[in-house]
C-alpha cells in the first residue's frame, strides 16, 4: 500500500457542543455538556434517556434535518478553505458522506397512515428522496465529481473521510467534501433503547460504571484537496489524512468481536498507510460510546496495541451522533492537534480494571503531530483514520517544532503547565 497524504484545507462542524468547530472546541475544553430529554419528540418510556440535541437549529422544510445539518457544516468548511460555489464548479469535486438516519425510508407518520390502510401523502417520501446527503451537497455546490453516501452504521463518517481521501489519492477528484451527518429521531432512540444500550443518565465512556450511550446529532465536513490544487490556489493545509484502515469482525450483527482483532487490523492498516509507529501517535480519539461491550473491546485493544498513548472519547460532549460521529471526531482530532491539547474524557470517573487502559481525566497538553480517530459499528465494521499536521514530505511551514518522522509523542497535563511547574509527562507512547 502506498503512503497517503491528503491535505485537509477546511473543517466545519455542528453538534450539541456548538454551532461551529471553534465553539465545539471551546465548550469541550470548558467541560460543558448538557444531555437532556429530547425536545423535538417524545417517547413513552418510563425512564428518560437523555440525548445531545443541536439547539436553535431549523432547516428548510423540504429537506431532512440531517441534510440541513450537513449543509451548515459544509458551508463552514468551505469558508474555512476559502472556496465558494463558483470555484467548486470549475473543479472535479465530489462528495463522500456518511449517515444512517439520512438514508432511511422510515417516516413514522407516513408508515402509521399506510398501516392503517389510509393513503398517506407523498411529501415525506419526496423529502427523504431529496435528502440523500452526498447528493444534497452535489446539488447545493454544483459538484460534478463522484458522489457517494456511505451507510456503514456508526463508522460511516470515518469511512467517508477515508474513502474520500482515497479518491484524491487515485486522481478521481481534485477536491472532496467528506464527512457525515445524522439527526435525532424517535425511531432511532427507541431502537437503541430496545437494544438496552442507551443510558438513563449522562454517558460515562470507559468508566467502570458505564451504563450505555447517549444519542446525539450533528454533522462535520472536511475539505480534502489534491496537493496540486492546493498549491495552484496558494491555500494552506490545516492537516493531512495520512492513513485509513478498515476491517470487518465477521462476528455478530450488533456486537463487537471480544478479541478486538478486527479493530487491531484497522489500526495497523491505518498506521501502515501513514508510515508511522505507535510511538509517534500523540493521542487516540476513541469511539468510546460508553456501552459495556464497545468500551471493553476498544480499551483492551488500545492497551495492547498503543500502550500508554493517551486517549479520550468526545461522546461525553456530543452524544453518539451515529453516521456523523467519525467525521465530527476527525474534525475534533485535527483541531486538537492544532491546539496541542485534548479535552478530558467527559463522564469518565472510575477506572475499569477490565479494560487495562484509562482515558485522560483532564485537559491535557499533547506533543506530537499525528493522531488516530477510530470508529466501531454495528455490522462489525472498524474504521481508523491517521490524521497529522505534517505531510511525509515535511512539516507544515507555519509550525516551528516537530516533524512527523522521528517526533515522539508525549503529553503533560494542562493544569501542571498552567501552574508553571515542570511538565509532568503522562505518557510517551510505546518506545
Amino acid at each position, binding site marked *: 500500500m502506498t503512503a497517503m497524504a491528503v491535505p485537509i484545507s477546511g473543517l466545519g462542524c455542528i453538534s450539541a457542543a456548538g454551532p461551529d468547530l471553534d465553539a465545539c472546541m471551546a465548550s469541550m475544553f470548558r467541560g460543558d455538556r448538557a444531555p437532556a430529554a429530547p425536545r423535538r419528540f417524545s417517547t413513552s418510556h418510563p425512564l428518560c434517556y437523555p440525548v445531545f440535541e443541536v439547539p436553535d437549529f431549523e432547516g428548510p422544510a423540504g429537506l431532512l434535518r440531517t441534510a440541513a445539518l450537513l449543509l451548515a457544516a459544509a458551508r463552514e468548511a468551505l469558508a474555512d478553505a476559502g472556496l465558494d460555489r463558483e470555484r467548486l464548479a470549475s473543479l472535479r469535486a465530489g462528495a463522500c458522506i456518511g449517515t444512517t438516519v439520512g438514508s432511511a425510508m422510515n417516516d413514522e407518520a407516513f408508515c402509521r397512515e399506510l398501516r392503517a390502510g389510509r393513503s398517506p401523502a407523498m411529501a415525506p417520501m419526496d423529502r427523504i428522496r431529496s435528502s440523500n446527503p452526498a447528493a444534497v451537497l452535489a446539488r447545493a455546490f454544483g459538484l460534478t465529481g463522484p458522489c457517494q453516501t456511505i451507510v456503514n452504521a456508526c463508522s460511516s463518517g470515518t469511512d467517508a473521510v477515508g474513502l474520500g481521501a482515497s479518491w484524491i489519492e487515485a486522481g478521481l477528484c481534485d477536491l472532496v467534501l467528506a464527512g457525515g451527518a445524522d439527526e435525532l429521531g424517535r425511531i432511532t432512540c427507541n431502537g437503541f433503547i430496545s437494544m438496552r444500550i442507551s443510558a438513563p443518565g449522562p454517558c460515562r465512556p470507559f468508566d467502570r460504571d458505564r451504563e450505555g450511550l447517549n444519542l446525539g446529532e450533528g454533522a462535520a465536513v472536511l475539505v480534502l484537496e489534491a496537493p496540486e490544487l492546493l498549491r495552484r490556489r496558494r491555500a494552506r493545509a490545516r492537516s493531512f489524512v495520512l492513513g485509513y484502515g478498515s476491517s470487518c469482525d465477521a462476528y455478530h450483527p450488533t456486537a463487537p468481536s471480544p478479541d478486538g482483532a478486527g479493530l487491531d487490523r484497522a489500526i495497523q492498516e491505518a498506521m501502515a498507510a501513514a508510515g508511522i509507529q505507535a510511538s509517534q501517535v500523540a493521542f487516540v480519539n476513541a469511539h468510546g460510546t460508553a456501552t459495556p461491550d464497545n468500551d471493553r473491546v476498544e480499551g483492551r485493544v488500545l492497551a495492547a496495541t498503543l500502550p500508554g498513548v493517551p486517549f479520550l472519547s468526545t461522546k461525553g460532549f456530543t452524544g453518539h451522533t451515529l453516521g456523523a460521529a467519525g467525521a465530527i471526531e476527525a474534525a475534533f482530532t485535527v483541531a486538537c492537534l492544532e491546539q496541542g491539547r485534548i479535552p478530558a474524557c467527559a463522564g469518565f470517573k472510575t477506572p475499569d480494571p477490565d479494560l487495562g487502559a484509562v482515558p485522560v481525566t483532564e485537559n491535557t497538553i499533547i506533543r506530537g503531530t499525528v493522531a488516530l480517530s477510530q470508529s466501531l459499528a454495528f*455490522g462489525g465494521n472498524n474504521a481508523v483514520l491517521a490524521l497529522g499536521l505534517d505531510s511525509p514530505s515535511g512539516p507544515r511551514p507555519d509550525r516551528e517544532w516537530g516533524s512527523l518522522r522521528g517526533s515522539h509523542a508525549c503529553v503533560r497535563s494542562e493544569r501542571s503547565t498552567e501552574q508553571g511547574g515542570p511538565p509532568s509527562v503522562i505518557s510517551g507512547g510505546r518506545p
Partner: protein
Amino acid sequence: MRITVQGVGVVGGFGCGVQDLARALGAGPAVGEPVAALRADPSPLDRFVPRRNQRRLDPFSRMAALAAYLALEDADVLAEDHGRLGVVVASGYGATGTTLALIDSIIEGGDACTSPIHFAGSLHNAPAAHLSILLGAKGPSLTVSQFELSAPSALMAARLWLEQGRVDRVLVGAVDELSGLISYLWDRQGELERPLGPGPRGEGAAFLLLSSREDAGEPYCILEQAVTGRGPAPGLAPAGLALLSGSGEPGVTDLPTRRLTPVYGCMPAAPAFDLAAAAILLKQGDGPERIACLTCTGEGEFGLARLKGW
C-alpha cells in the same frame, strides 16, 4: 492492474443464477399482458446456508446472501478462505420491509415494545454484516445508498480497493426489495416529485466477484472503467453496445443501446443486473468486444462502467 469479473450471482423475477438470466436475456420480455411485478425467490439460499443459520436474515438480506453465494460458487471459490475478501453492498432504499416491521412493533406495542431484531435488521448495512459473518469475510466492508447510482458507486469503490491493493477479491453487488412501502410508492408514483421509472417494478440482488489476482481462472470479462459524476457522461466509445438504466435520458449516443429492465424489473439495483448481463453477454462472445453500462438519473447524474471481453 487488470481487474476481472470472476463470478456472477443473480436472483430476480427471471429466476436464480446465471443460466436463468442468460435464458431471460435471450428470450427478451414476455409477450402478452404486462407484468405487474417481478419478484425474487430467495429460498435457494437453503442450498448454501442451513435454515437455522438464516434466522436473523430478513428477505432483503436473504436475497443479497443468495446472490453473493451464487457469485462465489460461479467463480469456483466458495470453499476457499475469505479472510481477505472485501464486501461492497449497494441499495437504493435499504430493508424497507423490515423498517415497516420495526415501526409496526412500535405502533402495536408502544415505544417499550420496539423490536431490537427489526431495528438491527433495518440498518442498511445488515446484508453486508450477515454476508461477512456467513463467509468469514474480514476485509473491508462497505454499504452505499445513492438511489439509482448505488450500484455504480459501489463498483467504483470496489475497483479502488483492488487498485490500492487493500484486497485482491471483492464481492460487490446491489439489492432492493419490493416491500409494502415501495409497492405503495409505485402505486402512487404519479404524485412523487420524481417518478420511480417506467416499470415493471422489480426486486432482487445481483453480485459480481471482482479479482485483481493474476492466477485467477478464466474470467467473464475485464472491468476497464467505473466512474460516477454529474453532467454529461463520458463518451461510451470504444464500447459496441450500451446497456441503459435509470430514470434519466443518456443524451445522444451513436451506439446500439438496450434497456433490460423489462427482464428483471425497474429498481435502484438495476444497474448491478446490467453489469451481470454485460458479463454474461461478453462471455458468450458473439457480440461486441466491449459493453458500456450507463445509468442516468433525472437529476443529471450518471454512472458508467465499461467491460471488455476476455
